[in-house]
């Protein structure tokens, strides 16, 4: 069942078109990511869903009902912002209980809820603390707890972990995943971190320039990106131009790249291979190593031949040097062909 439905949504801000024809569905209990670079419109999409921005066209349905005319406080959506926005004049318990207090829930029930949520996020006993007394990580958890305590139908997270260091970010991701499993809350996570999206989502929506380019499971989006733009989001990709003729793909770089049998129709193609899908063959060859970047477990190596530059990945215990001439082997089955 669709818990959230955006239909043909167009949003303009200050005269600029931000969202252009967004069609987006989220099932109940799903956790999906909106992944894209800065300025692609993902935060705008989130705010429009919550009712903070009015669309120029299109409908928003939450839990099956049309909410276009509803104010933000009536929609059942809660946003956790990147800058947390904890209320400084209230203590932790009052912050967390704010949502229920606005609904007019009984004080005792609120108190019990607050205590239970504090335990869930690992902050038991902090209910009387002042907000500014807490560490950054603790404040993050309070912000999350506050959103959950408000019992929303849809939880919206706007890049909530961007400002955290790696360690804290991992902990928070695990916490969100754990809570999501417990509460089965429909969640939309906005992020520009592709690793985060892959790790946490049931489905990922890749956004670029106000449109959703692909919306599928992490595996599908990563291994079968619909367009080069989507592929590029997950890292630097290799593109080998070539053509298909009578069931055989041949790159324009005849000499240095082997051909490949394929059932694709004839025409010009761009073959996309991830750096990890081109193997380094340590024998004297035609590919010149231009640069080597050390990344801990692996090396990123730039090679070139006859004007074509490629990026390949190899384990960091390999013995490689700049200026060396090597060979490569393409993992064709894993590659994606884009018809030109």
């Amino acid at each position, binding site marked *: 069942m669709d818990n959230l439905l955006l239909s043909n949504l167009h949003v303009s801000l200050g005269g600029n078109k931000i969202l252009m024809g967004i069609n987006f569905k989220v099932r109940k209990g799903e956790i999906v990511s909106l992944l894209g670079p800065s300025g692609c419109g993902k935060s705008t999409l989130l705010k429009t869903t919550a009712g903070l921005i009015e669309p120029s066209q299109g409908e928003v349905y939450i839990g099956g009902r049309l909410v276009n005319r509803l104010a933000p406080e009536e929609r059942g959506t809660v946003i956790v912002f990147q*800058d947390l926005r904890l*209320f400084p004049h209230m203590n932790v318990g009052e912050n967390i209980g704010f949502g229920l207090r606005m*609904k007019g829930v009984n004080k005792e029930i609120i108190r019990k809820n607050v205590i239970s949520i504090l335990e869930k996020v690992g902050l038991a006993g902090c209910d009387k603390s002042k907000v500014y007394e807490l560490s950054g990580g603790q404040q993050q958890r309070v912000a999350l707890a506050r959103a959950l305590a408000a019992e929303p139908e849809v939880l919206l997270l706007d890049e909530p972990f961007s400002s955290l260091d790696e360690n804290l970010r991992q902990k928070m991701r695990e916490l969100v995943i754990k809570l999501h499993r417990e509460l089965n809350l429909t969640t939309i996570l906005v992020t520009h971190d592709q690793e985060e999206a892959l790790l946490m989502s049931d489905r990922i929506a890749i956004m670029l320039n106000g449109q959703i380019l692909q919306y599928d499971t992490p595996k599908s989006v990563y291994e079968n990106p619909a367009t080069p733009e989507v592929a590029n989001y997950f890292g630097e990709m290799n593109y080998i131009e070539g053509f298909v003729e009578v069931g055989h793909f041949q790159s324009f770089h005849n000499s240095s790249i082997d051909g490949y049998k394929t059932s694709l129709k004839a025409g010009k193609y761009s073959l996309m291979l991830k750096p990890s899908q081109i193997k380094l063959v340590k024998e004297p060859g035609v590919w010149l190593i231009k640069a080597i970047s050390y990344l801990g477990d692996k090396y990123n190596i730039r090679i070139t031949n006859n004007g074509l530059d490629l990026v390949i990945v190899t384990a960091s215990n390999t013995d490689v040097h700049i200026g060396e001439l090597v060979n490569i082997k393409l993992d064709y089955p894993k590659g994606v062909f884009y018809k030109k």
Partner: protein
Amino acid sequence: MTRKNNNFIMRAVVYVGYFMALFPLLVLIIWSFTGIWPWPQLLPETFSLRALDELFGGYSGAIKALISSGLISAVVALLSIVVSLPAARAIVLCDFLGRDLLKFIVLMPVIVPATAFAMGIDVLFMKIGLSDTVLGVILVHIILCLPYTVRIMTEVTEATGDKLEVQARVLGASPLKVFTNITLPIALPGIISSVCMAFIVSFSQYFITLLIGGGTVVTYAMFMFPYIQSGDRTIASAYSVLFLLSTLIVFVFLDRTVKKYYDIGDVFYFN
């Protein structure tokens, strides 16, 4: 310069500052109880309770004037805030034509001498029947207070923005609940500053009240000034001390009560 020397100099500066502010007050207090104090002597020759009698005795009406002044200034301060808070929010959060011009115009009553525009206001008030009335005086006082209150509230609003309000709304608070639960408490330190500022500006007005009020509306300042001009230092000092004490009591009362009610420390600007 060693750390210890630095510390000592800083403390010395602070204490000198205290002294320079409090010593004249001390002199005023002594003068209030003076009978005769000829020049070369360090302390008065005779003491007298003449001033106390004058102030609190039956005929003077000084206490009455004090109370009615206090009320007028309180109303002025309140109305100034009621106008300034929404105005500040509009200036900071909304983009409208002429916004920068408005920010400058609001400061005019401080830049243009009051006597210059008060005459014109008095003529207008006479035509519409507000001259010689308390309402007229209150209105003009508000004009004089607005530069301060609008400026203070604008700064306060700029520091906090509307981020917390937006967060409160998505958490389920209606606009009215947002105002009472978030906007007002957060703006409270600024509001206290503005109210104190407006109160003192209004309470200190002499010429304007005389002009617009036409002598019908009597404020404490109007009571006090003739005595200061007259050269009777004892009574003038007594009036001044009472003036200072009243405003001090108002400030402290506001500060303590409101902070206690909202249980907040000092100013916190979160971003």
